[in-house]
């Protein structure tokens, strides 16, 4: 299985990752997830800073990819996560999975996101007109991960 992991300040190109994932012979199903900076609380979000634990983030993302590989038959997993300051509508994260069958591609992609949300050392600080505040971890993310256990 091909595993590609990146933690970067630069934007990524979803299309390039999709094209790479398509190259995996025998994989008829490609599922991608992308997360974007959005103002979901109707505050006036002007941006977001993503802090991370350099070194551990890459390791954590690779670990997550291999845990997924141990659970499903996968051809390739790509995970890209951005750090630094991002503006509204920018891309934050991409998870792409190629597999022979769609059920495995869907499960692995969602599992990786649920795992990443709970275990990869990234922290979001939102910048709004009312000030900057650290995003609180959500119980719903813990529950999402618990489903896979």
């Amino acid at each position, binding site marked *: 299985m091909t595993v590609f992991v990146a933690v970067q300040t630069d934007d990524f190109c979803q299309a390039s990752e999709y094209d790479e994932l398509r190259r995996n012979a025998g994989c008829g199903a490609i599922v991608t997830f992308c*997360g974007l900076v959005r103002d979901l609380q109707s505050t006036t979000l002007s941006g977001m800073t*993503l*802090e*991370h*634990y350099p*070194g*551990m983030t890459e*390791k*954590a993302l690779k670990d997550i990819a291999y845990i997924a590989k141990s659970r499903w038959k996968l051809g390739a997993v790509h995970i890209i*996560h951005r750090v630094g300051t991002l503006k509204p509508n920018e891309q*934050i*994260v991409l998870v792409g999975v190629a597999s022979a069958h769609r059920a495995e591609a869907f499960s692995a992609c969602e599992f990786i*996101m649920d795992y*990443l*949300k*709970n*275990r*990869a*050392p*990234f*922290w*979001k*600080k939102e910048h709004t007109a009312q000030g900057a505040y*650290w*995003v*609180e*971890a959500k119980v719903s993310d813990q529950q999402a991960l618990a489903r896979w256990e």
Partner: protein
Amino acid sequence: MIKVLFFAALRERLHCDQYTAHCATPATVESLLLHLQQHNEQWQQALSGTELLCAINQTMVSHSAEVVAGDEVAFFPPVTGG
């Protein structure tokens, strides 16, 4: 000697990114936390939360995990990436 790292909201509350702890080893994450809490009242409060996560040498561990000299131990709030 243990290299201790702090991230995100915890880093801000402690006004500290990195700290070198000179407690007796082998220790546990729990005993290292007690050692760090003695620093001052600010540290005592910030480092006593039950939600605090810990990684030793960049792998997530529980608070009962063993810490040996030379380890890199990181403390941080629940993660919020993705």
